[in-house]
């Protein structure tokens, strides 16, 4: 028990250590009905999402990761809404993956990516809340010997309407926990929501303003040591040799260990000592086959793909593009490109692991508890009932802390394994974090459009050439698609949550897959970042060639895409598109359909000396179907623009001698408050059966809107990111 650090409010069930296997067995109370599972404090679990304390506190369970996006608050709102509990007495508990596995994945998917946190779990968590309410009401009705239909619940209080009798959730929780869960669980009409849908404050702020919030980097365990690690700077390389004796005598150093094939770690009493020693250690690398790789070579590889015969088709909505282009009155052609980018989460990668031959546990930040669990399982060599993962608050995630092969969790286990019984906290330096990202994939794109004599777009060929994330990370998906990576087409795909939002009579969007040795990853927005730049900047080019207004030109192609049209019209109207911009101000706009949300942005910028860009204002509209917390959505929209505009203006990871050249924020800049535009968010959820994502979609519309405005300001089309490579600054 001493091993459980105090930040874990996982009083949850009986602690896994105490049970020896992490099994949540529940306490049978025969003969009165089904088993009651209890929280460690004895509170009965009503459904897996809800336990109630006698004092009426509601324990809401959450398994998706919180990395700042507000998902936990949103999910709690949804559960509390259906539960009709007192919002001021909600406490969050975090079941571990081990506990979930032991209960046949009672909590479902832990993974928190693809803007799925709320939208993919909304239905079952709401049902978990609603079922609990029904059971609590039923328990009260049983006690009063009245029909449940005569009772109502609000604010954790149950009232028998005819008699006015009242009781609390806390008082009937024991009895409710013994009832069978109802099968038919109707959900509220979102129009009647009182907790969900409201701009409530986050639940996790207090500890973030006084230094008490525990992040992975802050984990402290009794007897813990610290590790600094260095992996071969050339991806695909290996450790050849190192001389541990060289640093063995340095202050605090306990051990120097190899980490898998490719890494070396120094374990010391403090991280600073470990890092200092690691810097002194000369490691001989076998740098492998990629030591000659450079950004220029990679660009050549991609360039060749732009005209390659073979490509995977992502969208071919009828027609014959070649013939139509050949017969077009006017042809427009452009080539765009998008670089490697690192997530640069504010908190560098880290994980703390204690390994013994009997048990292995990890404490650390992950966007996918179950994915990390699988990695700990594999690296520890132990069976599932002897392994667990304790997630903590993430200092940013943005896709970096998803599950990637041979990543930081695996490293931490491999290190701890060489110190049996001693917990070891491994922290990457910022430099290591920059050198071993899972990078936004590189992509080039050639677009060819054909206009008829009246300036109508009759044909469009969009050829992507570049790296596939899924080929590296989920090869089974790519195999099942006969080599195609469907995610490459996010925002321009033939159907689904990322479908194309224009109708073009002759259309072909295809992808020449060109993979490199640089490991790619899911970077907030994933492939919408480049796809939105490609298609939305090119739409402006086409509109200009057609001699038409950029908005009008788009609208004509969007009759069958009413929700995209809705958000586009909304931003156009708010920015005043139909009226001339103030002197010195230039406008641009863009939109996309992605992660099942419809998003658009219109911006106003000014440009001084031809290269100093000031973004004054961005109007952003989003239609995510449902809005669970408007205040947090506004924050996600504005935050996504900081992430997206930092990428547009400053960020590129270049490859030289097989390794990434940028080492820290001085070469990989991020926006500051002085550069922050005014952001006006228009939230226009239109309901329906599909819930859209929030954390990612809007990120992609800022960059093309700004690029389009930059063209209007200067007459220069910038077709490659980042803008710093063109001598352009954000001021």
């Amino acid at each position: 028990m001493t091993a459980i650090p105090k930040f874990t409010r996982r009083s949850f069930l009986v602690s896994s250590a105490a049970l020896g296997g992490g099994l949540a067995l529940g306490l049978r109370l025969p003969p009165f009905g089904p088993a009651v599972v209890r929280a460690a404090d004895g509170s009965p679990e009503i459904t897996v999402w809800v336990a109630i304390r006698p004092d009426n506190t509601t324990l809401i369970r959450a398994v998706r990761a919180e990395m700042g996006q507000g998902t936990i608050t949103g999910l709690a709102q949804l559960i509390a809404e259906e539960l009709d509990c007192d919002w001021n007495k909600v406490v969050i508990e975090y079941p571990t993956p081990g506990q979930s596995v032991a209960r046949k994945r009672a909590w479902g998917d832990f993974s928190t990516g693809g803007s799925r946190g709320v939208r993919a779990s909304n239905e079952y968590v709401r049902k978990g809340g609603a079922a609990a309410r029904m059971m609590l009401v039923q328990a009260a009705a049983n006690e009063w010997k009245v029909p449940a239909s005569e009772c109502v619940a609000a604010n954790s209080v149950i009232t028998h309407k005819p008699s006015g009798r009242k009781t609390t959730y806390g008082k009937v929780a024991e009895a409710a926990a013994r009832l069978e869960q109802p099968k038919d669980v109707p959900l509220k009409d979102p129009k009647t929501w009182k907790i969900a849908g409201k701009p409530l404050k986050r639940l996790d702020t207090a500890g973030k303003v006084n230094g008490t919030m525990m992040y992975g980097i802050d984990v402290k365990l009794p007897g813990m040591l610290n590790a600094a690690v260095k992996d071969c700077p050339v991806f695909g390389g290996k450790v050849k040799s190192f001389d541990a004796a060289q640093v063995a005598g340095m202050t605090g150093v306990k051990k120097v260990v190899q980490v898998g094939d490719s890494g070396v770690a120094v374990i010391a009493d403090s991280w600073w000592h470990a890092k200092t020693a690691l810097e002194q250690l000369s490691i001989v690398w076998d740098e492998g086959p990629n030591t000659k790789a450079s950004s220029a070579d990679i660009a050549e590889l991609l360039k060749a793909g732009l005209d390659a015969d073979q490509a995977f088709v992502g969208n071919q909505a009828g027609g014959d593009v070649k013939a139509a282009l050949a017969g077009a009155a006017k042809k427009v052609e452009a080539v765009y490109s998008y670089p490697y980018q690192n997530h640069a989460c504010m908190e560098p990668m880290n994980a703390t692991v204690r390994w013994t031959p009997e048990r292995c546990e990890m404490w650390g930040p992950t966007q996918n508890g179950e994915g990390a669990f699988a990695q700990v399982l594999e690296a520890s060599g132990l069976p599932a009932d002897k392994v667990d993962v304790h997630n903590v608050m993430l200092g940013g995630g943005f896709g970096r802390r998803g599950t990637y092969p041979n990543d930081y969790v695996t490293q931490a286990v491999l290190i701890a394994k060489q110190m049996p019984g001693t917990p070891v906290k491994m922290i990457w330096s910022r430099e290591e974090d920059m050198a071993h990202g899972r990078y936004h994939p590189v992509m080039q794109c050639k677009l060819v459009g054909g206009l008829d004599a009246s300036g109508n777009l009759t044909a469009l060929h969009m050829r992507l050439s570049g790296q596939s994330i899924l080929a590296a990370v989920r090869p089974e998906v790519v195999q099942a698609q006969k080599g195609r990576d469907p995610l490459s087409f996010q925002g321009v795909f033939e159907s689904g949550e990322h479908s194309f939002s224009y109708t073009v009579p002759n259309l072909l969007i295809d992808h020449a897959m060109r993979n490199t040795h640089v490991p790619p990853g899911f970077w907030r927005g994933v492939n919408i970042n480049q796809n939105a730049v490609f298609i939305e900047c090119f739409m402006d080019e086409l509109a200009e060639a057609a001699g038409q207004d950029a908005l009008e030109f788009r609208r004509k192609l969007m009759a069958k895409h009413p929700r995209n049209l809705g958000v586009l019209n909304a931003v156009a109207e708010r920015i005043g598109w139909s009226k001339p911009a103030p002197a010195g101000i230039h406008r641009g706009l863009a939109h996309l359909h992605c992660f099942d949300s419809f998003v658009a942005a219109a911006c106003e910028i000014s440009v001084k000396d031809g290269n100093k860009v000031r973004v004054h204002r961005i109007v952003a509209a989003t239609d995510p179907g449902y809005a669970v917390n408007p205040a947090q959505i506004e924050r996600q929209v504005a935050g996504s623009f900081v992430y997206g505009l930092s990428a547009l203006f400053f960020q590129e990871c270049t490859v030289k001698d097989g390794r990434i050249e940028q080492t820290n924020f001085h070469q990989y800049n991020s926006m500051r408050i002085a550069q922050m535009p005014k952001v006006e968010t228009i939230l226009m959820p239109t309901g329906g059966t599909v819930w859209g994502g929030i954390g990612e979609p809007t990120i992609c519309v800022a960059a093309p809107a700004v690029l389009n405005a930059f063209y209007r300001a200067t007459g220069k089309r910038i077709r490659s990111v980042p803008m710093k490579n063109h001598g352009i600054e954000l001021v």
Partner: protein
Amino acid sequence: MRLTINGKSHEVDVDPTTPLLWVIREQVGLTGTKYGCGVAQCGACTVHMNGLPVRSCSVPVSAASGAKITTIEGLASGKTLHKVQKAWIDHDVPQCGYCQSGMIMAVAALLRTNPKPSDADIDAAITNICRCGTFVQVREAIHAAAKAA
């Protein structure tokens, strides 16, 4: 070496070149001050030294000996939050929160020397990185804190 942190004196046995940040985190055990870059770029490690904001990753501990150091844990007076912390809660500023200790310390120092900063003053003084992008709320909360007595 003696360090005075949040009004308490600490005897630490470390190499004098050790960055103040790591002494605060590892020897003194106050982990509210964060590591983000180690090279004075991001501001996550901001603490006050004699009332002035410093990026503790780039201050050798020897330079801090004898100074009055305040970390995020020492910003409140007892149970009463500092007005910047209060404004941060009122405006629901933090997202992941990792940068916010440094952000709050930088802002608290700004308000001490410039109690009613203009937007331009804020732009010049607050250069912390926030990857989550909380700047809209940060600015609102600074103005609110400046208005608070």
